């Protein structure tokens, strides 16, 4: 294109085929990620196989042994006749009860203390130390104080409550003053500010806290089922077979918890993605 033409019209014309500039990717990014993860999984099994062939311990879980144990647990059930699905379901119910309670309380108390910092400031002496007591340390106390289902819920609640509570609490001072002012200046009340600015601002933080809390709930399931007393649940499955020194079945229980936790996390991530489309970084 001649320079004179550019000077005269002030318009740059592109005569080529636009597809020549923006080449579509041959393999979608998502598929690529799946592919690489499959390779990672392959490497994992290779390492596992390497260890199992070189170890002298007869208890060490083997790939074939875990596979057989898994099939057996699904089809015939465990030594007491409970199938893997029943274990998974029982644990899921407990986790969601404890997590649900932690979510409701964490969000409510986090909002309350974030909006009225003096409550938190003046009760810090109790809140902060409790936060650092691990769920397992609560086992003896809950055995004395609680019965049945409440024991599971309590231990899981201890694990999930604080991540949610703290993330909500800490997010409130970070709400931008200018956004609050832009409601205030038009005559907005405290309630308007809470409803229209504070809550929408902290919702992403609430969900991020919830995701961490949900992960922590699954991490507490074995501790909770240690004292639950019922013979069913993924954690109980692990404990049962640990007593029998059957490591293959123990690993099946471990994988079960890992997979359910992973699935839960993915679900929340998808919800976040849908809900917070406004956060996606597309700029003109």
């Amino acid at each position, binding site marked *: 294109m001649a320079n004179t033409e550019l000077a005269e019209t002030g318009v740059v014309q592109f005569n080529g085929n636009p597809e020549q500039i923006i080449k579509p990717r041959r393999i979608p990014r998502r598929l690529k990620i799946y592919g690489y993860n499959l390779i990672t999984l392959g490497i994992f099994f290779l390492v596992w196989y390497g260890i199992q062939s070189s170890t002298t311990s007869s208890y060490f879980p083997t790939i074939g042994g875990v596979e057989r144990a898994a099939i057996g647990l699904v089809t015939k059930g465990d030594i007491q006749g409970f199938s893997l699905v029943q274990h998974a379901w029982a644990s899921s119910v407990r986790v969601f009860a404890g997590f649900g309670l932690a979510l409701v309380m964490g969000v409510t108390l986090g909002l309350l203390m974030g909006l009225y910092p003096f409550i938190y400031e003046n009760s810090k002496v109790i809140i902060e130390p409790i936060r650092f007591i691990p769920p397992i340390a609560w086992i003896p106390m809950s055995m004395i104080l609680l019965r049945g289902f409440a024991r599971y819920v309590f231990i899981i609640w201890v694990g999930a409550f604080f991540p949610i509570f703290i993330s909500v609490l800490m997010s409130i001072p970070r709400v931008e003053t*200018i*956004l609050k*002012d*832009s*409601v*205030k*200046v*038009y*005559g*907005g*009340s405290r309630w*308007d500010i809470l409803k*229209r*600015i504070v809550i*929408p*601002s902290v*919702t992403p933080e609430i969900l991020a806290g919830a995701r961490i809390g949900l992960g922590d709930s699954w991490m507490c399931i074995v501790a909770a089922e240690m004292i639950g007393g019922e013979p069913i649940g993924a954690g109980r499955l692990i404990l049962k077979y640990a007593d029998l020194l059957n490591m293959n079945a123990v690993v099946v229980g471990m994988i079960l918890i890992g997979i359910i936790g992973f699935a839960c996390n993915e679900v929340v991530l998808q919800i976040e993605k849908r809900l*917070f*489309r*406004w*956060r*996606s*970084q*597309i*700029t*003109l």
Partner: protein
Amino acid sequence: MPVGKPRIEIDVAHSYDSIVVLDHIKFDVYENEFLCILGPSGCGKTTMANLIAGLLKPSVGTVKLNGEIVNPQKHNISYVFQARSCLPWRTVKDNVKIALEIKGISGPVAEEKIANVLQIVGLQDFADYYPNQISGGMKQRVAIARAFCVEGDLLILDEPFGSLDAQTRYVMQMEVLKICEKMKRTVIFITNNIEESVFLADRLIVLSSVPARMIKEINVNFSKPRNVTHPDFLQLRTSISNLSEIAQDAVGGSR
């Protein structure tokens, strides 16, 4: 010369902790007047805007609107903030709507107002975009649209065009003049741009650097819209930039 009863009476001093930001500042604003407050950057102009809007209580003195102490819950104040005040979780349209929601205006009346102001600021095709999908200048126009859709006692603009490119800035200045002409608004326009202030103002108040004092009050009597190359315009502009304090600021290079 301004005539009639003052609509806004400002008589304040303000300090944060022990730092005095505004020394004694006292002036009135009259009905339908376009008042510009011109000051070097960092002189406390935004503090002053917040005081006038009633978002901040002055350490000493009062701001009165229609004879009463200013109160956003009682008075209809529109405010275009200097920083970005778009709510990232609302679309352009809903960002404009929030002011009307709070004022309790909804339904077709609100829809019509919003469509109208979006047209004025040139965002009618971006009504359903989220703030992170539009440019910085467009975000500022959203804030301007929000302020314009509330009919009020007072319109405050705090360096509203600072982030706009020169061309858009000129277009927006013309729009502000047109809207104020048409809607009969009382306007306080805060800026650090001498040319902008001379272009827009009926009356001009020049502030010193911090702690801010009023160093000059100028009535600008040229008819609008003004020709920025007219000798009178240039002369006034030069005389303001020669004011010792402003010149000092320019040499000091705070920008």
